[in-house]
């Protein structure tokens, strides 16, 4: 460093919040300028995250702290360590790509300036959740990501957006309240909400057992774990596509972050007593999501159910409490985020170009849309855990963790379920891209550049993370070995 130390984490967090009104105002004047401003705003957090890679890779972490409400001893603490780094990388990258994607996909929508402003706030809220060191602050950001996303679904969604937005809001808000209740309880018990201090204080008392349950409910609703999942297919299917990308690719992972940071990080003494319950919930989620995805005919709804299924895998990996299982769970968060974001972008291309999302009405598109076809094949196969793609690299670690912690039968079921995953993705790809075209396709073309560019980046990531994952796994492994009890 050249002597001047920038508060990089604050910049990461607040740039998009501050740019948000500016984008709104300038968008009114010129769309191009507003778009550029939004892209720059979303690129800054990403570039900082990349810039900080070396620091994190070398085992250091970055901490910033400001006084917020001295009366309540509340501090504004931001921490980027090996636990939050993968999440922050995922959020900032996907936020950046979704912003680029939106400039084309949403250009003719009503209220485009408002949309962009809300999108940036949504991104900032998600980054805030994973950087906060204080449970109260975490809760604030948890709600900060909920509110813009509610408006984004309810005003730019398809189908019955008002009802679906409302459902989404009520579900996640109910979860958030359960979490808030747990957080207040923690404050009553220990008088502090700073995560580092709590990690020393928390014991396995009965109160903590109930707090664990409350916070788990908050996280489970966000992760859409069965039976809290019904909001997800509606919200993810009917949201405007760039928002689906962020919801399915990123936002539901903040629930997994809470599991990693709080439930495993702070409550590792309680976690083992609930392992069998959590494993069964995660198994039901993965099988249920898979079965439901198999009978969907709407591309986006199929992808949404697939997310439920995959969140089951992530929770499974984290719940094993084995170092390899946790590493696999965290790595799968990244892989699923990239692959599912990619798949939603593909569905967006279908909607943008053909205005059709019923798989039975599509067909034979492979020759007209090679990029989209390749992207969908790779994304789907990666999620189905097909080597050499990213999804396999994380799934074998999840399964390895499962066997290491003696969950032989459960893990065998989880592995068997990957055949269902492969089945429904191939079924969809066949219906959309293979067979004889059902319409005249002569005017159909592939994704325009501002949609193809984010897709290409994600294709590269999906492929490369499968075998050249050395740096990122180093970071994840460090967290995993700290967290594991086995």
């Amino acid at each position, binding site marked *: 460093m050249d002597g001047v130390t920038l508060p990089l984490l604050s910049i990461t967090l607040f740039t998009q919040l501050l740019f948000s009104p500016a984008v709104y105002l300038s968008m009114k004047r010129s769309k191009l300028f507003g778009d550029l401003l939004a892209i720059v705003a979303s690129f800054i957090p990403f570039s900082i995250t990349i810039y900080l890679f070396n620091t994190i890779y070398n085992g250091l972490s970055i901490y910033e702290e400001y006084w917020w409400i001295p009366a309540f001893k509340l501090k504004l603490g931001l921490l980027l360590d090996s636990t939050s780094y993968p999440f922050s990388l995922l959020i900032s990258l996907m936020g950046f790509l979704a912003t680029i994607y939106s400039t084309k996909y949403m250009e003719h929508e009503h209220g485009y300036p408002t949309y962009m402003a809300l999108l940036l706030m949504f991104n900032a809220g998600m980054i805030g959740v994973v950087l906060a060191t204080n449970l109260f602050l975490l809760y604030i950001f948890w709600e900060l990501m909920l509110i813009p996303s509610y408006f984004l679904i309810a005003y730019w969604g398809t189908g019955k957006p008002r009802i679906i937005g409302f*459902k989404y809001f*009520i*579900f996640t808000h109910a979860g958030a309240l359960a979490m808030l209740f747990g957080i207040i309880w923690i404050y009553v018990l220990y008088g502090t909400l700073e995560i580092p201090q709590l990690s020393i204080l928390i014991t396995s008392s009965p109160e903590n057992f109930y707090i664990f349950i409350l916070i788990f409910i908050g996280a489970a609703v966000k992760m859409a774990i069965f*039976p809290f999942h*019904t909001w997800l297919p509606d919200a993810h299917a009917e949201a405007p596509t760039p928002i689906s990308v962020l919801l399915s690719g990123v936002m539901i992972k903040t629930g997994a972050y809470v599991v990693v940071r709080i439930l495993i990080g702070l409550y590792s003494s309680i976690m083992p007593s609930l392992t069998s319950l959590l494993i069964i919930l995660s198994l039901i989620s993965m099988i*249920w999501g898979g*079965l*439901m995805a*198999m*009978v969907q005919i709407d591309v986006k709804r199929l992808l949404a159910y697939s997310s439920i299924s995959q969140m089951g895998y992530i929770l499974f990996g984290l719940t094993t409490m084995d*170092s*390899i299982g946790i*590493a696999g769970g965290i790595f799968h968060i990244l892989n699923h985020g990239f692959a599912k974001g990619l798949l939603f972008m593909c569905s967006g291309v279908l909607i943008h170009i053909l205005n059709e999302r019923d798989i039975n009405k599509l067909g*034979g598109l*492979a*020759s007209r849309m090679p990029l989209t076809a390749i992207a969908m094949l790779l994304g789907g*196969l990666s999620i189905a855990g*097909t*080597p*050499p793609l990213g999804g*396999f*690299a994380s799934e*074998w*670690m999840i*399964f*390895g963790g*499962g*066997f*290491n912690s003696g969950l*032989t039968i459960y*893990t*065998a079921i989880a*592995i*068997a379920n*990957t*055949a269902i995953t*492969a*089945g429904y993705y*191939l*079924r969809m790809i*066949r219906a959309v*891209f*293979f*067979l*004889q075209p059902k319409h005249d396709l002569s005017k159909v073309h592939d994704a325009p550049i501002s949609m193809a560019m984010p897709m290409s980046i994600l294709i590269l990531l999906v492929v490369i993370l*499968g*075998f050249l*994952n*050395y740096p990122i*796994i*180093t970071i994840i*492994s460090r967290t*995993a*070995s700290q967290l*594991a009890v086995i």
Partner: protein
Amino acid sequence: MLPYSPWLSWIIPLIGCVFIPLFFKLSKRIGEVYSVALIFLASAFSLSMIPDVWGGKSWVEKIPWIPIPRGFIEAGVIVDPLSVLMACIATFIGAWIMLYSIGYMAHEEGLPRYYFFMVFFIGGMTGLVMANNFLQLYIFWEIVGLCSYALIGFYYRKPEAAHAGIKAFVTTRVGDVLMLIGIMILYSLFGTFDYSQLNHALSHSLKEGTVSLPLLITVLVLLFGGAVGKSAQIPLHVWLPDAMEGPTPVSALIHAATMVKAGIYLTARLTLTIIPFEEFPPTILHQWYMTVAYIGAVTAFFAATMGLVMTDIKRIVAYSTISQLGLMLASLGLASELGWTASTFHLLNHSLFKALLFLSAGSVMHAVGTTNIDEMGGLAKSMPITFSTSLIGALALAGVPPFSGFFSKDLIIEASLEVGSTPIYLLITFTSILTFIYIGRWIYKIFLAQPKHSVNHHVHESPPVMTIPLIVLAVGATISGIYLETTHGFTDYLGIKMEHGVGYLTLLTSSAIILFGASMTYLVYFSGKIPPERFRINALGYQLHKLLLNRYYVDALYYKFVDWFIDSSRIVRRTVEDGGIDRFNYLVADGVKGAVNVLRNIQTGSSNINVGGILLGLAILILIFLALLYGGLW
């Protein structure tokens, strides 16, 4: 050995394939030449390893790969006679098939895709056999499965092809799931994927008694599940005949010469490196070996019976492939050094003559434009080269001396007699007789029978770019058996010292097979003394024929199961997901709405009622207060 051969033989195609679309952008010819040259280059690297491993020498090279929480997972290659043999088959036979493709695929659309996946496949297959650990093996295992899926579905507009691709992927995936479970259990037991480390850990824990034998056998059976899927053995054999929807060079390369051999390779590798004979006498793993042997032998027999009645030129050869793969597995399952040698020898020979048969079939299809052998006939005159190469392939398959199949099949029979397993011996013998008959029928109907239609009038021989590979493979299929047998080349190569003088019982069996097979073929087809229709006159024959035509109804059963599965998911979705769980959400919402509607009646706005309400509430509060103050009133 050329420098870094164990690595470059698979890295060259894997990296090189990325640029194929670019070269096709320049011009079609450059793209084709580039693709074929890549594979010839890779095969030079593979072949150059032969002298280094001659005599059973082997070594392992490793580099660090994935930093997991406890240590590293290493990537590596194992260089030994088995892996080099497989690598040579994949790259060298692959190279000739690629050359053939230039002619065969000349007028197709989507060539960059075709060549990309072919080269990617060859790289993946070579990587699979060179891998020194199960994780790497599984990665390549799925890569070749993925290429197979993409190439079977090459004509993606054709519903059958798109369907067959999915069928292949999902069916083999069932086996892969079992295999992955087995791999992961081994990993959690011993903390490693590495073959040689697993071998040490296994022998150590078996001596100490830390791993129970039933668990070990279960794990081995699970691993063998992957082989059953990939090598299309019963009950996962259904995908291979349908896979014939792909272009013919694909069938020759992937579904005859190489990928379907991956299962054999895995089983051979398991018995060679991970559970070697010396340390673990086959008796303690008897159940596992028997599973392998019986699945193989039973598959061999039943696939051969189905091969008898098919009419599709490629499907007959596909059933034959399933059957021959079964023979190799049966031989491996005999758990003897002779059985192992016979199996790998047959693997080599089969790759040569089966690729030859497929390419010949492709040459025929290219010329006549149909796949039904009943519509062909009399092609021997118009396609002399294709006819003679087909005949060589067929004789090698049927096991007629001096062609290659004879020698390896002899060894398999010898091995089954040596172990003294009568059911296996009988199944192998009957399979061999059936093999003779169905391949005789194939040759007769295509090349010798009276042509039924006029379509065959304008038939001409294929161009040299297709016939040269045919000739090369035919020469291979002719000499590989006799040369390696008489010079002991194959056993020297493997480094196995044994004097396998073939016993008189084996000679008797082979002679009987040839005699019986030849006379049946002659009577039923060539001379027409007993026309095949005669077998279908009585009820039993008719039913049997129907049973065979419907492939024992196994496919139908699987389709029923999948349909049932999807239908029940649909019902679950309608009743539980939408009608139950989601309905419940809306019911709660409606309930709240209803309750609020009832409660809002109180909000009349009349001040009398409001003040009354306040007073009532106040009174209740005071009562509670008093009750708390003078507790004990309750």
